[in-house]
């Protein structure tokens, strides 16, 4: 099913008719905010439509995307997102219900963000020589949101998965976009996917069960560091992404420098020339400095 069909099918008819005529080839986001205009982010800029989104439409959207089964998606809702068929992520925000210091639920949803996922084969071509230098390098890809991290590691999984045993810990269901046990993207013949599992739990599980050569995972945080260290101590290679603007920021967030020293290759992305622009590549002991600034994705 095409992205347009999936996204329009998950919007209330009053909203979908507003955007049914526009091309989805460049669309990155569709935003619904209660009481405000419907907005679409496409080709680097936002376009607001005349339609004012109501609370009822937001509520209806949640009902549609969850198949009227909010209870079945409560873990995803607690994490403020639901992944649709095709790997498209729907971000949610509203009022958090806290119990014992933890989010129990998100109620009164006030904003919904449809992020359109795409597979771009060859997106990782430019960084593959750095990842596969002599041996597979432990690689960390750093960038702010919407710079193409997931698209690039999805392609890296596809390329490595044709030659190595790759395990993908897909906590947010975006890399492989599993739907009823089938990956919605080409992620390589020898790639195994642990879907919607927290990385801190999933990495040791995959180490024991699937004996991977490489583990690929998205958006690592401080709580995942121990699991990553465990994988590295077992001789398994890690390719991961992290949100951030620079290495220092990520180092601070991951709780010190020890884990950063394990990465043989650190790639910084931006969107200066479109999503996936390589800003900088740092290898162990070698700083290649600013690259061409060429976009990997567009």
């Amino acid at each position, binding site marked *: 099913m095409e992205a347009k069909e999936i996204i329009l*099918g*998950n919007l*209330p*008819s009053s909203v979908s008719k507003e955007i049914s005529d526009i091309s989805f080839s460049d669309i990155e986001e569709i935003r619904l905010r209660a009481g405000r205009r419907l907005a679409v982010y496409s080709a680097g800029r936002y376009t607001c439509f005349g339609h004012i989104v109501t609370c009822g439409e937001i509520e*209806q959207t949640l*009902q*549609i995307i*969850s*198949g*009227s*089964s*909010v*209870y*079945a998606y*409560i873990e995803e809702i607690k994490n403020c997102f639901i992944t649709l068929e095709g790997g498209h992520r729907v971000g949610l925000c509203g009022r958090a219900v806290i119990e014992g210091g933890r989010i129990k*639920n998100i109620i009164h949803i006030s904003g919904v963000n449809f992020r359109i996922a795409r597979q771009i084969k060859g997106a990782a071509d430019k960084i593959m020589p750095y990842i596969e230098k002599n041996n597979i390098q432990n690689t960390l890809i750093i960038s702010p949101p919407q710079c193409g991290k997931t698209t690039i590691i999805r392609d890296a999984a596809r390329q490595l998965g044709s030659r190595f045993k790759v395990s993908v810990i897909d906590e947010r269901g975006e890399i492989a976009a599993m739907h009823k046990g089938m990956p919605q993207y080409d992620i390589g013949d020898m790639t195994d996917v642990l879907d919607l599992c927290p990385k801190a739990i999933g990495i040791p599980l995959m180490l024991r069960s699937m004996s991977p050569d490489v583990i690929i995972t998205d958006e690592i945080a401080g709580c995942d560091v121990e699991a990553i260290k465990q994988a590295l101590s077992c001789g398994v290679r890690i390719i991961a992404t992290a949100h951030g603007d620079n290495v220092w920021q990520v180092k601070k967030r991951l709780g010190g420098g020890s884990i950063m020293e394990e990465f043989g290759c650190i790639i910084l992305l931006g969107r200066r020339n479109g999503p996936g622009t390589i800003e900088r590549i740092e290898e162990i002991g070698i700083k290649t400095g600013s690259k061409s600034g060429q976009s990997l994705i567009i």
Partner: protein
Amino acid sequence: MLVKLLGCIIIILCSAKIGFEEAAKYSTRVKEIRELQTALAALKGEIGFCRTPMSQALTRTGQKLKSSVSQIFIKAGEDLKNKGKSAAEAWEAALLGVQKNLSLKNDEIYILSTFGKLLGVNDAGGQIENIELTSQKLAICEKQALEDERRFARLYRSLGIIGGVFISILFI
């Protein structure tokens, strides 16, 4: 004389049939309420333990039932598979469609309609509370339905026969 006798027998039989059918509605109502309670217990299991998505949970629950009540669950479940419809809308449409084939009274239909409005909108705890509350309301309805059955079923059966005899006498 033979024609008159034959006519009287036909009138009595028809009248008795109407009386028995009316009486049967009271028994069917009790059976349907009990079946609804069984269905709600099954739905509670699907949602509470298995976290089955609503469309599948409703269809599975419907398939376990025997009477016309099953059609509400099956139709709502099937309808919900079409994207763009909420569980409340699918339930209400199914209830309206099946209502005429049921012996349930307005009280029970109102309870089911209210139950449908909260279908799938909150977490498992909220869904289970909605199911339990509906089940409790149906238990009260069941008591009333049993009482009605005891009072009116025999009355309608007797009325059917006696009415037929009375009409026959009038014709003779």
